[in-house]
């Protein structure tokens, strides 16, 4: 397809318009979406910080409980076994205290006083069971010296509290806490601040309970993640991912959220935070914030990494609405751009088309189509130039036509008398005959020859002869109707075609009048020249039917009139 300038120009303008609208819309949308995501990330990070604070507060409360009991003189007395008589009573009192603690703290699984001697044997142990708190009997107490919460705690400085790694408690006989996610919070018992650790007080915290508290206040749609310092999940929306390391599997933050890697890198800052948008395998894309927390005031064996995620779809929901609105605006402006492009293209190409039409339809004689010559721009200049050119062409054409008309007249008229010449007469006769044949009409020819013409011409000169011829022509013309034709055949011969003449009387009357008119003297140079004429009449269809025959018959009749004594008219059929 060949594209006109209008189509190309319109297309170019439309593309520019649509592009401008589209790009503006797209970047506006992208920018606002990024802002929404950034705002959501900031909110998530803030929520994460709040949760980390809650976790810290929870652990610090437990640490306070542990420290309180570890610092109680009763604990030292129990471990020193000072007074065997009072030992049983003291143990009973301590066990009761532990029981009260467990009853008021549903998140505690177990509370123990462990001896540094005898391989870390438990001295007092109170466990939570299915629906009650039980004190573990003497024979069931176990040696725990090889557990980190014992050997690490015994090495702690005075006043310090140990927090173990989060893990599944596989210690046999731990009642409700067995095989459950838990964490030990422990403090050494010392007689004097500088003295050796005699033992320790340890509380097993129910991590599920602690985490449930953390997750309780989360807005709908937000998911909680908790991982240890290696990135192993402790809490995960999918329960199979939590504590996977305990089953010999790997489910780690850095694998599901690669952007969290810096929090786990070798030598990573003890505390750090980051926010990421990623797509965990097999899930919707989420915005997630993670924070690594090291509990500086406590001797925590490990750090925690706490995270919150929110589906990206929920975050960008607003921006989707904005996107839809932007799309509508873009489409609207694009349509407007296309319309404007169309109008502009038309405004430019219409005068051009007008010029093309005017040039194409230019006929010299006719009034041309109007040109946009009143415009004041380049198109106006073009139009005016074309208009000037048209006028020149028209003027030249007019003069050419005048010359043509003069030539035509010369070819068909007698130059002396101005009467039609033989050629034109024969044309008219043919037409009249053709007409008469069609309509069963009639016509008559009067063949006239001037008398004395040769005498006048020879004696008085050509000028006198010409005067006689001119006078005869004028007089004969005055005799006939406009529809009749008077022609000069040559020399002193004239002929009159009476179209439609059928009445011989009327014809004779006209012939008579012609004879009278020719008989009148012609004044030339003060002399009256006397001429006169003889007339032969032929009639169609009576005398002949062809033009040549009809003239010949009239000619013959004229000769009869001449030889019959001139100044008379003879009818051919009367011969």
């Amino acid at each position, binding site marked *: 397809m060949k594209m006109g300038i209008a189509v190309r120009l319109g297309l170019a303008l439309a593309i520019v318009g649509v592009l401008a609208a589209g790009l503006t819309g797209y970047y506006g949308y992208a920018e606002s979406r990024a802002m929404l995501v950034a705002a959501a990330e900031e909110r998530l990070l803030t929520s994460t910080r709040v949760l980390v604070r809650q976790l810290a507060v929870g652990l610090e409360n437990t640490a306070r409980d542990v420290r309180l009991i570890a610092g109680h003189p009763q604990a030292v007395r129990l471990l020193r076994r000072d007074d065997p008589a009072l030992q049983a009573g003291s143990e009973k009192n301590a066990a009761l205290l532990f029981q009260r603690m467990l009853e008021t703290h549903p998140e505690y699984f177990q509370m123990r006083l462990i001896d540094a001697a005898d391989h870390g044997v*438990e001295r007092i142990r109170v466990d939570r069971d299915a629906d009650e708190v039980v004190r573990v009997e003497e024979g069931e107490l*176990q040696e725990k010296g*090889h557990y980190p919460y014992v050997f690490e705690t015994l090495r702690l400085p005075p006043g310090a509290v140990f927090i173990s790694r989060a893990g599944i408690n*596989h*210690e046999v*006989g731990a009642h409700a806490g067995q095989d459950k996610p838990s964490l030990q919070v422990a403090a050494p018992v010392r007689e004097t601040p500088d003295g050796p650790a005699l033992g320790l007080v340890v509380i097993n915290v129910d991590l599920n309970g602690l985490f449930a508290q953390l997750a309780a206040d989360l807005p709908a749609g937000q998911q909680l993640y908790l991982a240890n310092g*290696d990135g192993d999940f402790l809490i995960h929306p999918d329960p199979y991912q939590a504590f996977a*390391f305990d089953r010999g599997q790997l489910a780690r933050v850095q694998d599901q959220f690669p952007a969290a890697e810096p929090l786990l890198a070798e030598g990573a800052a003890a505390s750090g935070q980051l926010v990421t948008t990623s797509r965990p395998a097999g899930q919707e894309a989420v915005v997630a914030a993670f924070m690594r927390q090291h509990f500086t005031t406590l001797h925590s064996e490990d750090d925690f990494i706490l995270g919150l995620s929110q589906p990206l779809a929920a975050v960008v929901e607003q921006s989707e609405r904005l996107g839809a609105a932007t799309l509508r605006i873009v489409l609207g402006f694009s349509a407007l751009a296309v319309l404007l492009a169309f109008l502009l293209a038309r405004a430019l190409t219409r005068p051009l088309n007008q010029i093309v039409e005017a040039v194409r339809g230019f006929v010299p004689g006719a009034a041309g189509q109007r040109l946009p010559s009143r415009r004041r721009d380049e198109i106006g200049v073009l139009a005016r130039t074309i208009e000037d050119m048209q006028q020149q062409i028209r003027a030249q054409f007019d003069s050419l036509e005048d010359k043509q008309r003069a030539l035509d007249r010369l070819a068909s008229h007698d130059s002396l008398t101005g009467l039609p010449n033989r050629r034109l007469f024969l044309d008219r006769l043919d037409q009249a005959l053709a007409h008469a044949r069609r309509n069963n009409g009639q016509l008559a020819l009067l063949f006239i020859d001037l008398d004395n013409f040769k005498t006048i011409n020879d004696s008085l000169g050509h000028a006198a002869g010409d005067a006689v011829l001119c006078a005869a022509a004028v007089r004969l013309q005055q005799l006939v109707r406009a529809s009749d034709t008077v022609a000069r055949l040559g020399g002193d011969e004239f002929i009159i075609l009476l179209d439609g003449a059928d009445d011989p009387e009327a014809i004779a009357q006209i012939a008579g009048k012609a004879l009278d008119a020719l008989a009148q003297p012609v004044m030339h140079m003060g002399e009256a020249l006397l001429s006169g004429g003889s007339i032969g009449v032929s009639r169609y269809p009576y005398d002949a039917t062809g033009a040549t025959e009809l003239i010949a018959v009239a000619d013959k009749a004229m000769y009869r009139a001449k030889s019959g004594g001139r100044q008379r008219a003879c009818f051919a059929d009367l011969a």
Partner: protein
Amino acid sequence: MSLGGFSFRPVPALVLAAGILFGLFAGCVHASGVLRVLAWPGYADEEVVRSFERVSGARVELSIVDSDESLWQKVSANGGRDFDVMAVNTAELQRYIATGLVQPVDPARIAGTRRQLPRFRQLNEIPGLVHVRKGRAEAYAIPYTYSTMGLIYDRRQFAAAPTSISSLWDPRYRGRVLAYGGGAHSFSLAAQSLGVASPFRLQGGEWAQAVDRLIELRRNVLGFYTRPEESVRLFLRHRSALMFANYGLQQLHMLRAAGADVGYVIPREGALAWLDCWAITRGARDVALAHAWIDHLLGDTASGLLVRRQGLANTLVESDAGGPADHIVWLAEVEDAARRERLWGRIHSGDRATRVLAP
């Protein structure tokens, strides 16, 4: 606008057709053309697979497993017909043989076996590899890589390297010993220290002796570890003297990388060791190709990479921490894995012997 840009170009079509034809003929070098391999991470690296494909003309479909359980699930899922060749340890191999999921391997068809160390060539010396069927002894797997569970010791705390696992019980190192917290191996270790005939077959009164021995161990150690990183952390943090290296050279390398001056010994009672072998499934499509694969893996490239990249030992050369005189005790199926775990759970939790042995 013009549509002149669109024209039919015959050249790519020809190339494609030629490629397809070539592919068809290339696939004919071996009848089946595809070898389906089940291996562990690091056993068959990219270049090993590529070079095998180049030499054999076959295509390798490699699947990686990361646990005994997933290996069992994959192989047993379709009666062993989904894979041709797999890597499995000698203890695990037994259930595959018992259920008929693997078929005998012919060492004579694997030239590479002649370059293996003597202890890996004598297949009937390795428990569980050779079974007698209808009066004929047949090998079911070819050894590929192994790891010993020796002792790691701090050179600065030992004037002379320990020679016996009884050092783990030595009160001089009390609180400076690390042991592995797994039931099956702990009982085997206790049995070895007791001089029991087979550490994997405890009988009668040996159980009570082993329990006592493990309680003694519990009282002598600093703690028990389960993961290699954990063991390294504890070893360094508490300046441990001695460690039962359940993960073998991997732990040795990690400790050395962390700057520890540590040594590795195979105790005279013998070091427990797992041994991974290549076995051919019952449903293998092309047994000759599977043999060719095993031969290729016994080549210098593949076996060399085991040492260089994975820190494992291969069957061609002695490892830098061992020698031909080393006494290696290949792991075998234990008499009662569940009982070992149950008793160990109690021991680890701190129970006394009477409660451990209670029903």
